[in-house]
């Protein structure tokens, strides 16, 4: 069992200040000017909001920004110079819930398989991830159906569990353990009853989730669901292909690459988030489009999350955060799609 300590909430500011010495930028859950939950840079402990549902936008943008420079180019006569001078400031991603921790585990796997994506990896290596047990699920949440426990610390360097006047703190990785001495004065001995704290919170959070289904049972049947277009038509008919679901998804990683002149002789190449919902996403140079219909593009998003990445990495690329449900302008609900898949797939398996 990992070593556990109590960090009293009165000391949280000191804790953050110590963190800041090694990681100047601290990103955490807060509120925007319209009082909506958001991840942003925290300069003062009072800005942290830990008693809310998850921010609508995931912390993905701090590891994989919506727009990111790859390099600068400049022309000298008929030759060119390239400069890859992206600078990564060390950052803490503070108080991420298990859904977002699980998503980062997925993006870590994705961006480092086969070829290493240097831009993601540089940010990831310079980030310390601090997770927190989830006590405030929304009515869109279904993490447990995707195999994520609300108190799972997997994917974090340090994990916090709310104990009322204190946080139970676990140091889980080398990165975190190497810092532990610096917090020595703030870390108090955990009491015996703390050992059951996570269990109690897990039970309570699970009871707050509206429903739970077991997608693990879909098995081989999901392969044949691809052909059942009517299953996807039910949802794609109303879809406006705005791509918001993919942008707000913590595991969606697709991007486009573009060039831009900054002046007459120089410019930059940069990448921006792209979406499989967009017609142009799969358009060939010849003008042919293998996913020209809406139903084909919606099916791509769903099958990618619930089937393709399982085959590639043995991981679902849906973590049940429910953000795509919250953001969809026409009320498409991935939870009901997942339940349809589960039902149809189990019929196929019979």
């Amino acid at each position, binding site marked *: 069992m990992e070593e556990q300590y109590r960090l009293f909430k009165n000391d949280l500011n000191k804790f953050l200040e110590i963190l800041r010495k090694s990681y100047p930028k601290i990103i955490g859950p807060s509120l925007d000017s319209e009082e909506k939950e958001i991840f942003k840079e925290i300069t003062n402990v009072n800005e942290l909001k830990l008693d809310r549902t998850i921010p609508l936008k995931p912390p993905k943008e701090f590891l994989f920004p919506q727009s990111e420079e*790859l390099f600068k180019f400049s022309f000298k006569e008929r030759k*060119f110079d390239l400069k890859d001078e992206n600078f990564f400031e060390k950052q803490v991603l503070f108080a991420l819930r298990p859904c977002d921790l699980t998503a980062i585990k997925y993006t870590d796997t994705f961006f480092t398989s086969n070829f290493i994506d240097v831009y993601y990896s540089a940010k990831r290596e310079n980030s310390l991830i601090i997770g927190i047990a989830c006590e405030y699920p929304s009515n869109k949440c279904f993490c447990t159906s995707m195999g994520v426990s609300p108190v799972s610390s997997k994917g974090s360097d340090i994990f916090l569990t709310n104990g009322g006047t204190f946080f139970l703190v676990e140091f889980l990785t080398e990165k975190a353990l190497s810092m532990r001495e610096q917090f020595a004065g703030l870390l108090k001995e955990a009491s015996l009853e703390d050992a059951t704290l996570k269990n109690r919170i897990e039970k309570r959070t699970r009871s707050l989730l509206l429903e739970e289904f077991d997608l693990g049972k879909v098995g081989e049947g999901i392969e044949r669901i691809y052909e059942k277009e009517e299953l996807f038509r039910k949802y794609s008919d109303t879809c406006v292909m705005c791509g918001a679901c993919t942008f707000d998804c913590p595991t969606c990683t697709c991007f486009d690459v573009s060039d831009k002149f900054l002046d007459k002789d120089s410019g930059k190449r940069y990448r921006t988030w792209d979406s499989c919902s967009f017609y142009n996403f799969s358009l060939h140079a010849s003008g042919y489009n293998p996913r020209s219909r809406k139903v084909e593009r919606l099916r791509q998003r769903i099958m990618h999350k619930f089937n393709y990445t399982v085959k590639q990495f043995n991981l679902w690329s849906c973590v049940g955060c429910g953000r795509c449900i919250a953001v969809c302008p026409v009320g498409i609900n991935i939870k009901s799609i997942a339940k349809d898949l589960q039902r149809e797939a189990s019929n196929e398996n019979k």
Partner: protein
Amino acid sequence: MKTNNLYLPLPSEIIEIQNQGTNIKSFLLKLPEEINANNIMPGQFFGVSVFGQGEVPISVSDVFSNGNSLLFCIANVGTVTEKLHSLKVGDTVGIRGPFGNGFPMSSFKGANLILLCGGIGLAPLRAVVSYFLNNIDAFGKLEILYGARSSKDFIYKDELRQWRLKPNTIVKVSIDKPEKEWKGNVGFVTLFLDPNFPDRSEILTGIDREFKQTKLLICGPPLMMDASIKMIQNINFPYENVYLTLENRMKCGMGKCGHCNIGSKYVCIDGPVFTLDELNQLPKEY
């Protein structure tokens, strides 16, 4: 695992430009020192950049290891390729690669090769022809079956003439619609596989009637690929010996940008070459 930054192109000077058919030019580029010519396989591709415009994925048409140069054949179909077509000898472009699996050439040794190509689809297969000619004793016969929309749309015409004169090499061409001065075959290129077509593939008619010692390599536009697959089903050619190279949209070449994703595969790293057996396991999204 490769850790260097593969998003960064290398500078490459244009050595020679030739017109090839309608709206198509071939570019001979200097091979950057960082890239080993021996590591480039037929069927692989490079990202070719014109800075300020962007990058396009282009298959390797030929590798000249002695001259340290690379040949690409590029149709003017978009903003990047339009800019490429305006460049002159001595200009510099950026290249990244090679990417993709390429054709498993060493596993083809001992077999006959049929190359079924449509239009600019000869571009990646030209590298196969060169590999064959450089290792001619290792293979059986080579048959190039090449169709184009019109007589103006053939690429590498000079090379086609030269290949006809090489040992163990058969070249057959066809155009889609009749033309006044054209005395050769007329009809879609898949006709060459049709048992009832008079000028049918010589390998399939005579040399390997049982389809046991022949690999069929296909590249062309999606319609041509679909027609080829139908013909292959009709003549019962074994799917595991059919190799198709795909041209899905792609931006990174490393399985990251997501554009070329088909099922659990990425065309840029798992392909662009797939056997028909492998394609049949995937959604029809190519």
